[in-house]
């Protein structure tokens, strides 16, 4: 029969020679191969101590951003919730009271902002939809949890640390993913 591809390899059925039937040379050859692996570098990364760097386009946990004075940027417009294909985001809006200007940037803010991390598919559409640059995806992923309700992240889980009070934590949480590292939004 004609071979269909040129990848065909004919199996050799010829009986083993005396040397091959000795079996020991073959064993020694195999043992030499395994022995050579002692000197090979192993590719394992010692995980909890060392982590593999994420690629710059990695999409991880959401972060609710603050501006440079530490005011929450989110205005609870709901565009992210609409954009979310997994319907993971829910929020409740509230009006900023006089005297709360140092907490919220705009007159309206999110009193409740929840993302269900079990539903979230980390597509990043919320980040694209946000007009205030208030939500973006970070370079961390959701840690494991014992209960389902532990995966519903509220505002206290999502909000970035205060840039003035805790600058180091803020810088760490901000990472390199924020579009405007200086805190200036793309609001017009």
């Amino acid at each position, binding site marked *: 029969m004609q071979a269909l591809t040129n990848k065909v390899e004919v199996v050799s059925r010829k009986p083993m020679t005396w040397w091959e039937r000795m079996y*020991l040379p073959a*064993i020694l050859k195999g043992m030499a191969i395994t*022995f050579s*692996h*002692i000197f090979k570098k*192993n590719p*394992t990364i010692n995980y909890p101590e060392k982590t593999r760097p994420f690629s710059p386009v990695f999409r991880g946990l959401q972060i609710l951003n603050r501006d440079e004075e530490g005011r929450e940027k989110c205005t609870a417009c709901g565009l992210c919730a609409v954009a979310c294909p997994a319907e993971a985001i829910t929020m409740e809006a509230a009006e900023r009271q006089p005297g709360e200007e140092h907490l919220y940037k705009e007159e309206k803010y999110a009193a409740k902002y929840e993302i269900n991390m079990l539903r979230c598919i980390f597509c990043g559409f919320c980040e694209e939809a946000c007009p205030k640059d208030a939500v973006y995806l970070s370079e961390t992923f959701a840690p494991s949890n014992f209960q389902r309700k532990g995966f519903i992240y509220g505002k206290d889980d999502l909000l970035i640390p205060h840039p003035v009070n805790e600058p180091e934590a803020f810088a760490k949480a901000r990472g390199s993913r924020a579009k405007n590292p200086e805190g200036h939004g793309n609001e017009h």
Partner: protein
Amino acid sequence: MLVIDWAIFIEKLVLIISVVSGSLVIAMYSTYMERKVAAVLQDRRGPSRAGPFGILQPLADGLKLFFKEEIIPSFSSKFLFILGPCLAMLTAMMIGAVIPWGNKVHLFGRDISLQIADINIGVLYIFGVVSMGVYGIMIGGWASNNKFSLLGAMRASSQIISYELAMGISLIALLMVTGTLSLKEMVGGQMDHWWNIFKQPLGFLIFLVCAFAECNRTPFDLAEAENELVGGYHTEYSSMKLGFYLFAEYINMFLSSAVMVSLFFGGYDIPFVNDVNLAQNIGINWAAILQGLCLFGKIVSFLFLFMWVRWTIPRFRYDQLMNLGWKILIPMALFNMIVTGGLILLKQNNWHF
């Protein structure tokens, strides 16, 4: 009144306790070594969590085994079920009695021989104990009242019986060369002469293959062939009874390495060094320590060989195993014996026909 030399009693007791606990600790750490060697040969890291470099891993494993539920199947014969692992452990430990762990030490004004029992039939004793070892597996497999256990046990026993023949015949040639059955004298004979491996290379090869088979190690671990027999003879075992079986395997490995080193690789002989002169120069005790270390090093390299082979060679099929044992190893051992006998005759005749 019977007069017992209490000093001998105490010295032997101390020796027995240290050999038993020593082989337990070494068996423990050979499980660690096995995992590390396996990891290194497969480009992995191996246990690294418990303690630095995973050095406490054997303790963690043992603890885990202790905390497992102890299950004795209701359809098993309980006495035999418990007796099985005990026997496996006991026979594994008993080999250590005749192995010379060193020449002697001089303590409290006494010369203490570092061998529990220097019996003049040491090699025969080893054979007797090793063939007892199959009882542990056999009884365990039988008492489990489980098809897979029984199959595993039968495989193990027929395999051990088959390979014991070749092992014995290969040793006869060695015994003809050394002219003694006492392990101490055998080691003594190798101290200042060639090691027996150079006099009996074929005998050593046969002995090595048979030792692999006797220890139920890959490529001859058909007794616990996981893909065919679930767990083999210890399918029904759990908790520390299973641990005993696994432990017995490693003790067997350690002690058969020790036997091989004593028979073929000069035992506690320090290579390229005249041990008698050394003992005169640095004192008997220091020489004994060096010899012990040397013996230990040789044993560890044999343990490494066991593991290295395990992670290289796939398992034999059962008919291949029997073919190898009966059709190749036994004829080869017989051939070796006859050639050795002929050469010894010739030598006694001053190389005249």
